[in-house]
């Protein structure tokens, strides 16, 4: 029989307001094996922890039950507390009487009764706990960053700076991401390329960074400290080691009618291309969907003009295996498709554009060389209407339920730049709210209104009608209580942003959780914002939620710091709650081996002593505790009941069941 101590926490009034903590402590004191029971205001505080340690020593406790908040919150805290007092940390059980009791019930009697039952279950379990010792596993000192936008680049640079090797996997032919397409950045209006491209070069030149461009992660196995990743290098039909990036092929290629995705299809490029002049790596790529040579075997112009002999039409996808200690997800975002919002006539007129397309139209390296011209007729627009919140802040059935966060600011930027470059344009911004929380953000927006004369109208556009070369915009002005009819030359839609489509399958590979909008979930929304709940997976940038550039960079560096902290360790403490077979009961059937997702179970032939001094060799299961993650699938698959899980044994769970149903 264990000597159990019970500690009931008030959590200030969080628990004590709805649970009679004194009564709980009193009733639980009468449970078998309980030698000490008390309650205290903040059990997790210094004083509370000291009280627990003192009681362990004073009453010779062999098991501790803490009735407090969720074990997801403070289980580790209390385990460490008890360990310091000489108790095995796995002799601690938590009864969750806050999240799963006091916070969800209003009636004090009911909540108290439930708290007592939860306490009993924990006591019943702790009686069957056994001291556990965690093993260790080595840490592979190399990190993988998935996504080579500004988030991925920053994370990689910081990790490399700390002296660790890091690989960037980028699905496009160049790193740089969305920021390469942006013209100017708010609120300082410095040019995006001027601040981004040096970082891209830094990444390329850093000896510790390896860039896999035009590549994807195709499988992930293993666990924190020991991930085994397969990277698929897609065939680009150009030998990266030979290509000098001279660009001659991209001028000579006869296939001229390929939509230029870097300019969002606003102009055309060739079938062999380098996305933009500052691309890293500066290597050509053949677009297999359009290349005549690859499709019909007739052409070969690029191969003829390439003096480096880099063109390789036979190139195949290549697969690379690599081991990593940590993985950072930096898959970023995309603007949503706008076909569901055709009241704005996006698919009916080329002069209705998204904000990202507008960025390209304003960009000196864009299709118009930086002069703002209407896509339909190449004329200067004189009246421009910006529409905010297109697809953001919607009911689930109508779009994205969240605020995309960056649109208010970039629209203010667009409006301001239009007025600055072309003072003869009338610029209207239709908004629901202007959201500018950020350093110098609201000042920026006010400048757009006061100094640059942008017409901010509280209201929404209801319909855009292309007619006779104009866009007839019908909108509401809620403060003026009128319906506005504006003959505009261009309409710019601030489309909601969503996580990149590659994120969902990646999350499945990484077993990292996502929310309903496909943003990666952080381990704790406030206290662990750059870690995924899955150990060893870290989050950087907009894959976790909408973010602007400064926030992305901040999170990228934070994720890097977490990775560095992990890679600095030589060994990781493993989870001691692993499966363990009872060799005497094991009949060697292999059922457990088949269900183990980690390959942690193997079979060995072992000699056993039989009756009358005979020996016999039997085939029995063996679990590698460094690999076992403790899911318990094998325990249920085992037909003879030989397999059990430490910390969640059959007996322990049944004791809990009995205590609850008693």
């Amino acid at each position: 029989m264990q000597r159990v101590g019970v500690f009931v926490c008030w959590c200030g009034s969080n628990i004590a307001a709805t649970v009679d903590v004194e009564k709980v402590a009193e009733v639980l004191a009468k449970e078998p094996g309980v030698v000490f029971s008390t309650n205290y205001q903040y059990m997790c505080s210094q004083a509370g922890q000291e009280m627990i340690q003192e009681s362990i020593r004073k009453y010779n406790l062999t098991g501790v039950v803490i009735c407090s908040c969720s074990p997801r919150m403070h289980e580790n805290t209390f385990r460490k507390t008890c360990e310091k007092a000489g108790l095995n940390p796995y002799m601690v059980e938590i009864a969750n009487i806050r999240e799963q009791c006091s916070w969800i019930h209003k009636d004090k009697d009911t909540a108290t009764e439930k708290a007592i039952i939860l306490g009993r279950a924990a006591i019943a379990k702790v009686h069957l706990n056994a001291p556990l010792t965690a093993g260790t596993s080595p840490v592979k000192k190399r990190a993988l960053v998935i996504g080579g936008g500004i988030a991925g680049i920053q994370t990689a640079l910081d990790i490399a700076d700390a002296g660790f090797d890091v690989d960037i996997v980028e699905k496009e032919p160049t790193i740089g991401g969305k920021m390469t397409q942006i013209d100017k950045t708010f609120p300082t209006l410095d040019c995006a390329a001027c601040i981004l491209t040096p970082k891209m070069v830094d990444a390329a030149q850093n000896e510790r960074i390896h860039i896999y461009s035009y590549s994807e992660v195709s499988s992930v196995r293993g666990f924190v400290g020991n991930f085994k990743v397969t990277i698929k290098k897609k065939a680009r039909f150009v030998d990266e080691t030979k290509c000098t990036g001279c660009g001659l092929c991209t001028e000579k290629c006869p296939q001229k009618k390929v939509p230029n995705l870097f300019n969002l299809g606003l102009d055309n490029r060739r079938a062999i291309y380098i996305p933009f002049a500052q691309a890293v790596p500066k290597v050509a790529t053949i677009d297999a969907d359009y290349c005549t040579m690859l499709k019909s075997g007739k052409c070969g112009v690029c191969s003829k003009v390439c003096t480096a002999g880099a063109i390789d039409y036979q190139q195949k996808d290549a697969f690379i295996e690599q081991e990593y200690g940590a993985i950072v997800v930096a898959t970023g975002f995309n603007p949503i498709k706008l076909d569901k919002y055709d009241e704005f006539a996006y698919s009916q007129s080329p002069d209705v554009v998204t904000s990202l397309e507008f960025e390209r139209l304003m960009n000196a390296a864009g299709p118009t060389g930086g002069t703002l011209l209407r896509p339909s007729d190449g004329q200067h627009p004189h009246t421009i209407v910006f529409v905010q919140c297109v697809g953001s802040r919607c009911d689930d059935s109508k779009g994205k339920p969240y605020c995309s966060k960056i649109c208010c600011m970039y629209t203010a930027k667009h409006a301001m730049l239009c007025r600055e470059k072309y003072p003869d344009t009338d610029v209207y911004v239709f908004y629901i709210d202007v959201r500018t929380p950020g350093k110098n953000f609201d000042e920026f927006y006010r400048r757009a209104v006061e100094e640059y004369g942008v017409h901010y109208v509280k209201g929404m556009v209801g319909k855009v009608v292309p007619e006779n070369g104009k866009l007839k915009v019908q909108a509401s002005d809620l403060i003026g209580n009128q319906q506005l009819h504006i003959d505009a030359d261009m309409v710019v839609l601030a489309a909601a942003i969503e996580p990149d489509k590659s994120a969902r399958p990646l999350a499945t590979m990484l077993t990292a959780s996502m929310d309903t909008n496909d943003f990666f979930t952080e381990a704790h929304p406030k206290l662990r914002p750059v870690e995924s709940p899955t150990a060893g997976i870290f989050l950087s940038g907009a894959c976790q939620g909408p973010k602007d550039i400064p926030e992305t960079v901040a999170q990228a560096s934070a994720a890097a710091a977490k990775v560095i902290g992990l890679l600095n360790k030589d060994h990781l403490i493993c989870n001691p709650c692993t499966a363990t077979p009872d060799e005497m009961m094991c009949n060697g059937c292999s059922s457990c081996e088949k269900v183990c997702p980690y390959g942690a179970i193997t079979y060995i032939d072992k000699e056993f002593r039989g009756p009358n001094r005979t020996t016999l060799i039997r085939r029995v299961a063996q679990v590698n505790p460094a690999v076992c993650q403790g899911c318990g699938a094998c325990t249920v698959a085992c037909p003879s009941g030989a397999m059990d899980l430490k910390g969640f044994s059959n007996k322990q769970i049944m004791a809990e069941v009995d205590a609850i149903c008693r």
Partner: protein
Amino acid sequence: MTYSYFPGCTLKTKGKDLDIWGRASAEALGFTLEELPDWQCCGAVYPMARDEIATKLSSVRALMAAGEKGQALVTLCSACHHVIKRVNNDLRTDEAIRDKVARYLKLETPYAGETDVLHYLEVLRDKIGFDKLKEKVVNPLTGRKIGAYYGCMLLRPAQEMGFDDPENPTILEDFIRAIGAEPVIYARRNECCGGYCTIKDKGFATKQVDAIMDNAKACGAEELITACPLCLYNLKENATEGLPVAYFTELLAEALGVKEAAK
């Protein structure tokens, strides 16, 4: 294929053309419209009030009559289509309405929206197929530039109607292509014509219709087609300087070569 057919009040009087050419074309295309024997007027507007049951009953009776024959219910008039489809949707999704209706009509098993409601155009698109229709055309309307006027009733609210993209529909354009003419896409084809407000305020309908006509003309349309008698009326009677307007069934009958015989 045989469908139950709900013509509606207007198609028996002022909107006979929509009906006659629709039936003649159906015959030519190889499907049968079986008029429900005792249909009652649908009420022309969908009863939005959640506390009104009586106004939904005529639709329910028609739906159940079609259901008993195991047929889908086809309509031609877009108002009837709107009302019947939405009432059907109510019965399908709203338990309270379903129960009330069942008690009102003394039904042993409540009607839960089992019958499919199809617009004639949906039959052409989803059951016949515009490709098949194209093959049956004997008299292609080559060279005619036709603007489709959808109006409100067929499209909105899209979540309930499920007819087509409510802001950029294509079904009538595909239809126009199938009968050999050239569709003209213009943005106001789903803006309201003024509806029943024409009774009290012709000027209002004129304002609406003129905007629609200007937009259609600017985009190059030379004539308009519609599926709604009230839209047809407003477009014809209340336009300051309008384009010719016809029911889509008229052009269908013309293309199939059954127009004259039907009259």
